[in-house]
């Protein structure tokens, strides 16, 4: 009896051993070594292209299935509950009156304001930016589509397979990589910290940081396209970018070396922060120091004045926005008076929503979502450097930079303040609506009096 079990046992051990070795070798060759040297085999891009084809098929199938079952598909933006047509006030009111150019007030004019009001109850521009973007196509993640219920067995099966792949294969792989990346970062930066200050240390620190961030990028299967690299931020400047998620840092830092700014945390992040600062100067603030704006500004200016230190990376929106727009930039970083290097980051929402809704999900939950998505695909544009012009104050400068970033990234440039989850709306906006409407009435009555 025992002789039966022994060879079986050792066979299993052998198999396990071999598969682990194969697994780790593959990991090393295909992921870690390229990360060290900054090259890519192109596997991720191939993966991305096949995913796109798959999603297109899934969307078509879903639409066909819905038609067969005679159900209404919910499509955001194009067929909402109330379709929003971007006509101006004058056009809308004239449309309502249909041709008969009566310039006087009509009782039904109230419908225009009424409809606008109800539209904003159903969905408003500001709150929309703080919730995840809704997609028109389906990317096999139930979390991003309202239409998913049992439309066809094929789709459900495909979704099931998708779940298995994502949670059973991709997630463990990514978690392993993430731990490797972070672990290496802590260990290697501490080692580099032992070197005396000088060119050798900066060189090594740059290499170490880049390598670890690249491993983290692979841990998220992030497929990043960098544009206009000639505009990359240089020492003595500040790099500003729009903020969608904590991953933004990893995405930017895997292509260039930056000095990070942030609050000192405890726990794991604190360990990472302390290790990083040994290798090259980052700016970490104690919680009490954050309130003191002068102290913050002074530390930033000092850092910037020293040309041997890396450019600072700042996200002026102050909070995570859902990547369909850019909100108001806080002016603090624009007051320092050095060159600003704007960067626009736009995520492709088809593969996985990178937006972190901090009121809904905690950090761990968010990371789990990230790592169990298909991939993170984004584009980064480096814009040419900007400086404050004569006679321009910090707020105007901030708005100018914001407009440039929004334009490049194809994001809507919103006037609203990112901190506007609370806060009152100015009376000025209401007056503008009244002005527009009165122009329709008074303007046309002027024509009347002339004739």
């Amino acid at each position, binding site marked *: 009896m025992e002789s039966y079990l022994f060879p079986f046992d050792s066979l299993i051990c052998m198999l396990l051993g071999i598969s682990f070795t194969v697994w780790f070798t593959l990991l090393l060759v295909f992921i870690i070594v390229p990360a060290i040297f900054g090259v890519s085999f192109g596997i991720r891009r191939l993966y991305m292209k096949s995913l796109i084809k798959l999603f297109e098929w899934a969307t078509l199938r879903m639409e066909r299935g819905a038609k067969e079952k005679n*159900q*209404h*598909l*919910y499509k955001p933006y194009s*067929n909402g*509950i*109330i*379709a929003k*047509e971007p006509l101006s006030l004058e056009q809308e009111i004239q*449309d*309502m*009156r*249909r041709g008969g150019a009566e310039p*006087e*007030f*009509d*009782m*039904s*004019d*109230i*419908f*225009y*304001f*009424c*409809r*606008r*009001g*109800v*539209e*904003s*109850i*159903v*969905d*408003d*521009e*500001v*709150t929309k930016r703080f*919730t995840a973007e809704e997609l028109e196509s389906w990317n096999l993640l*139930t*979390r991003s589509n*309202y*239409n*998913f*219920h*049992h439309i066809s067995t094929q789709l459900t099966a495909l979704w099931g397979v998708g779940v298995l792949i994502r949670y059973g294969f991709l997630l463990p792989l990514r978690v392993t990589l993430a731990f490797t990346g972070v672990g290496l970062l802590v260990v290697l930066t501490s080692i580099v910290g032992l070197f005396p200050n000088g060119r050798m240390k900066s060189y090594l620190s740059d290499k170490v940081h880049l390598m670890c961030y690249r491993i983290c990028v692979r841990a998220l299967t992030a497929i990043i396209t960098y544009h206009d690299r000639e505009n990359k931020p240089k020492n003595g400047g500040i790099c500003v970018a729009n903020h969608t998620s904590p991953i933004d840092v990893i995405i930017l830092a895997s292509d260039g070396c930056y000095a990070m700014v942030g609050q000192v945390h405890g726990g794991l992040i604190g360990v990472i922060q302390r290790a990083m600062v040994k290798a090259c100067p980052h700016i970490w603030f104690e919680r009490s120091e954050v309130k003191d704006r002068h102290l913050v500004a002074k530390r930033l200016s000092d850092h910037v004045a020293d040309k041997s230190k890396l450019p600072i990376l700042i996200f002026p929106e102050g909070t995570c926005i859902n990547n369909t727009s850019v909100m108001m930039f806080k002016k603090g970083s624009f007051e320092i008076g050095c060159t600003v290097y704007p960067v626009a980051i736009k995520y492709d929402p088809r593969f996985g929503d990178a937006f972190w809704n901090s009121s809904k999900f905690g950090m761990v939950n968010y990371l789990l979502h990230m790592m169990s998505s298909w991939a993170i695909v984004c584009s980064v544009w480096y814009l040419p450097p900007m400086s404050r012009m004569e006679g321009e104050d910090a707020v105007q400068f901030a708005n100018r930079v914001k407009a440039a970033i929004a334009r490049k990234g194809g994001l809507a440039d919103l006037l*609203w303040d990112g901190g*506007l989850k609370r806060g*009152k*709306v100015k009376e000025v*906006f*209401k*007056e503008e*609506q*009244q*002005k527009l*409407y*009165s122009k329709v*009435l*008074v303007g046309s009555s002027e024509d009347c009096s002339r004739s």
Partner: protein
Amino acid sequence: MGSTSSTLLKIPNVEVLMQETGFSPAHMIRLHDRFKALDKEGRGHLCPQDFGAIKELAMNPIGDRIIGAFFCPGKETVDFHTFVKILAHFRPVDKNRPKEPNSPEPINSRSNKLRFAFQLYDQDKDGKISRDELLKVLQAMLGMQVTEEQLESIADRTIQEADLDRDDAISFEEFRKVSPEILHSRCFIKV
């Protein structure tokens, strides 16, 4: 964020609601999410302040009237049921609905949409829009942009045109007559 059907079940009386209002399951879920998002303190019902927090609504000249339309007289809260039923007024008209003589009129019929707008004018709910009520709405929509005299003349002219029984107020029937036919297909569109 689980699957659709489980979220649908969390909404009480959802089948009845869908039948009464004509919203699809996907719309119901969307509205339910929106309701929860507006209900920041998670109380299960909305109060006027929750609506007031919507910036675009605060910016709307008749914003507070629209908010008032959601609350029944005397009630300080809106539950999901009422929320959906009021929003159902704004669904596009079902052109292909068969005309059954005994079934109740759907919420999004042209007549009910007009009634909703009528109530925006008629704040004291006496069934008539008085000259004062009309003036108040004009003031809201035009603000400081026109003079008092202009406002009064507009109000007078409007009542003159619409008031058929000469009682110096506009009843619902008179309101219905002056509202353009095009109303239902343009303002509360689409799909």
